[in-house]
């Protein structure tokens, strides 16, 4: 009987912990969002965050997108050639890249690179009292540290995804024309015929949401970090893992919502 009660207590504690965590995260996100729109503004910090999250993620996002497009063309050819449907490769590449692979892979890459960096930086600031020091110097830490990163990531991700879309399609084009023997003109015609504005836009909307989530999880975990170097390490891991899972989960939800809209 006691064991049963212990189990119930454990489940209850887990449920309460989860609700508390979601509540804290929600309040943190709302506070960060509200500080984006309220003065004072820190354009220099927004610019710096934009460079760190967007510009310095360019190489990794570009390479990921290029190789993904190339692999996609190869794999599609292998599968479609069995049914004599090779001509659908251009359509598959452009749809997959713009709707799914561009935003999701760019999000995961930026989460691993920039999300981890945000959590590590804010975590270090927390455990070395730098965040407390900000408060004592008439500066609201949420406004100074969190809001610029949320805004920068929400703007940077769609731009990165736009580049990823172009490079992903280019990767597919290179493999199709250089290795699989497709005619360049025919492949490009098929690509542009299947390239829909709605697909690109839905991908960019996803990217904006993913950018916000990456910065949010990096800031949230770093901001609450405690316990020295180990705490910062834990916060960094939690930031990347939680952002990655949220990206995949939100991708499904957004696909459901956006696909119905753009059908």
């Amino acid at each position, binding site marked *: 009987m006691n064991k049963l009660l212990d189990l119930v207590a454990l489940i209850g504690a887990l449920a309460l912990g989860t609700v508390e965590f979601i509540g804290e995260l929600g309040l943190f996100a709302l506070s960060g969002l509200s500080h984006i729109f309220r003065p004072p503004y820190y354009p220099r910090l927004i610019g710096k965050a934009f460079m760190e999250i967007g510009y310095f993620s360019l190489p990794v996002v570009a390479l990921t997108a290029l190789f993904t497009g190339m692999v996609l063309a190869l794999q599609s050819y292998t599968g479609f050639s069995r049914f004599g449907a090779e001509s659908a490769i251009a359509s598959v590449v452009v749809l997959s890249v713009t709707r799914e692979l561009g935003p999701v892979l760019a999000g995961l890459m930026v989460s691993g690179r920039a999300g981890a960096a945000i959590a590590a*930086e804010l975590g*270090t*600031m927390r455990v*070395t*009292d*730098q965040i*407390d*020091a900000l*408060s*004592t*110097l*008439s*500066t609201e830490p949420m406004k100074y540290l969190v809001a610029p990163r949320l805004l920068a990531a929400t703007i940077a991700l769609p731009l990165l995804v736009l580049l990823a879309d172009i490079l992903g399609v280019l990767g597919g084009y290179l493999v199709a024309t250089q290795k699989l023997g497709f005619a360049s003109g025919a492949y490009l015609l098929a690509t542009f015929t299947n390239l829909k504005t709605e697909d690109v836009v839905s991908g960019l909307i996803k990217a904006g949401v993913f950018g916000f989530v990456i910065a949010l999880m990096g800031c949230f975990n770093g901001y609450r970090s405690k316990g020295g170097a180990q705490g910062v390490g834990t916060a960094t891991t939690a930031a990347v893992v939680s952002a990655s899972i949220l990206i995949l989960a939100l991708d499904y939800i957004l696909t459901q919502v956006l696909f119905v809209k753009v059908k």
Partner: protein
Amino acid sequence: MSQPKIRIRGLKKAFGPKVVLDGVDLDVEQGTAMVVIGGSGTGKSVLIKSVLGLVTPDAGVIEIDGEDVLKAPRARARELRAQIGMLFQNGALFDSLPVWENVTFGLLAQRRIRRSAARGKAIEVLAQVGLDATVADLSPSELSGGMQKRVGLARAIASEPAIIFFDEPTTGLDPIMGAVIDGLIVDCVKRLGSTSIAITHDMASAQRIGDNAAMLYQGQVTWTGPANELMTCPNPVVDQFTHGRAQGPITMALRK
């Protein structure tokens, strides 16, 4: 009797089951330097963090110039706390900013100085803590521990605050550098006419920088008196602590 600059009454704070502050009463008179001593984990840092608004107390009153900051509207509480400068234990300098920007950060945040004039102002304040202009453009990580403390002190005094807090100002420094920092603290506080609270374990430092002292024990102020009487105080708790005796009323849980 004049109104104290800082008046604390019945301050309580617990973290889960652990009661850290259990009804702290403390008065700090205008223009005086109070030193708070006490063992590790007795709540000295929590006490000043409560005044700064970095920790929310469970109960009690914290008055600055007779106004309760805990009951004041948020904007007014911020105004009251804006007159406090703080030197953190490890300096807490911003890694991402050069020394001059660290020093003038508060002034820039309060828009009391233009960015173009900030570097010059920083050099002026750095000179007051014995640092020359060459350090202004360095990163905090390029400085020694003693220099970081001086930059932290420069940042704390740059806005000429009416109240200054010092959290373990000599921790991690050699005795000579500790004495130098103490001297700078005394000079700065006297020159600005500020009211100060310092928390420390260092008895030599406590006597150098304090006019008065308070001993925190079991979540309460167990003794207050002139800082120069710390070493001769008959209170058994103070006597054991200041002389570092293992035997006495203060018991420490030792890990085996």
